[in-house]
């Protein structure tokens, strides 16, 4: 499974077959981040912070530039389309800009990811008619083995003191963005290992940019909803 597929599964309420309401607003940014992180792990894009040096004023806004470093296809349809889009701009662009760009295609990305999961028999998609003209999709787990293994590994990783490999670092960031650790760990354990989770998710720079955008969205929502 690629990162976007794992993220989508983690974001689902698998009993109701829908995306959990608390994930609705952030999921598209998280999926955009998952695509970029997969391309980075597969050595197709790289990120750096050279603009810290080039323009110090930019530092607090967005120091992370993303560039394409490998153009050969990955073999994953969705990732390869994203890789093609990234090549349309020749100059390195801020990671944040690309996260926003791909999040705007969130509806299509969700559908494609769900279809890929259905094709590999992990997910079952059920279409339901709503009113006369509208159809809605519900997603149910057909095979939970892969997801259970990831959950178990994430739990082991944050409760222990192992050094994760780069792929696991990305998974910690993804799991954290979905609130998975709230579900996996007791309140006491979560409070105890929160500093480790924060330290591990920081190790991936694209994950950091993704988390920052999601936090800003959550902050905006909570500000908008605050009375008065």
């Amino acid at each position, binding site marked *: 499974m690629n990162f976007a597929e794992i993220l989508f599964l983690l974001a689902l309420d698998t009993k109701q077959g829908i995306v959990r309401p608390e994930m609705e607003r952030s999921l598209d940014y998280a999926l955009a981040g998952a695509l970029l992180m997969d391309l980075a*792990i597969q050595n197709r894009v790289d990120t750096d912070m050279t603009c810290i040096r080039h323009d110090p004023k930019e530092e607090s806004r967005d120091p992370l530039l993303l560039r394409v470093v490998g153009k050969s296809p990955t073999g994953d349809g969705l990732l390869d389309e994203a890789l093609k889009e990234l090549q349309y701009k020749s100059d390195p662009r801020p990671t944040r800009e690309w996260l926003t760009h791909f999040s705007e295609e969130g509806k299509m990305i969700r559908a494609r990811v769900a279809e890929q999961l259905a094709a590999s028999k992990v997910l079952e998609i059920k279409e339901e008619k709503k009113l006369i003209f509208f159809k809605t999709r519900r997603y149910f787990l057909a095979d939970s083995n892969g997801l259970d293994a990831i959950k178990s590994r994430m739990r082991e990783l944050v409760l222990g003191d192992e*050094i994760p490999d780069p792929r696991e670092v990305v998974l910690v960031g993804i799991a954290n963005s979905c609130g998975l650790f709230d579900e996996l760990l007791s309140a006491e354990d979560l409070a105890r290992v929160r500093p480790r989770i924060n330290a591990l998710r920081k*190790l*991936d720079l694209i994950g950091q940019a993704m988390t920052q955008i999601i936090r800003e969205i959550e902050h905006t929502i909570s500000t908008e909803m605050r009375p008065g």
Partner: protein
Amino acid sequence: MQIICNKHAPAFVMALSGRMDRIAAMEFDKAFTELMKNGERCFVVDLKGLEYISSAGLRSLLSANQQLKAGNGQIRLCNVGGLVKEVFVISGFESLFSMYNSYAAAVKFK
């Protein structure tokens, strides 16, 4: 990037200079894997001449650290400065690695 390797028993020293981007990170991975195959388990990576590190470079160092810890080995970094140090601070890498201010201190293994 240039990698200069030499044995400073019991450590194996890899001195990196220049820019550690994706291509250079792959070269580092290759050299490191070869040394691991030859039985080296104690590494000092001297970053004195390293001017730049990208995410791919960070991932290579993380992967080396993870492999060594799993194989009862260790990796020490020394002379981390400038932009590379800034990246280490932002990414939290400094908390995962044993860092030394000088080469002499890093190669002293008891």
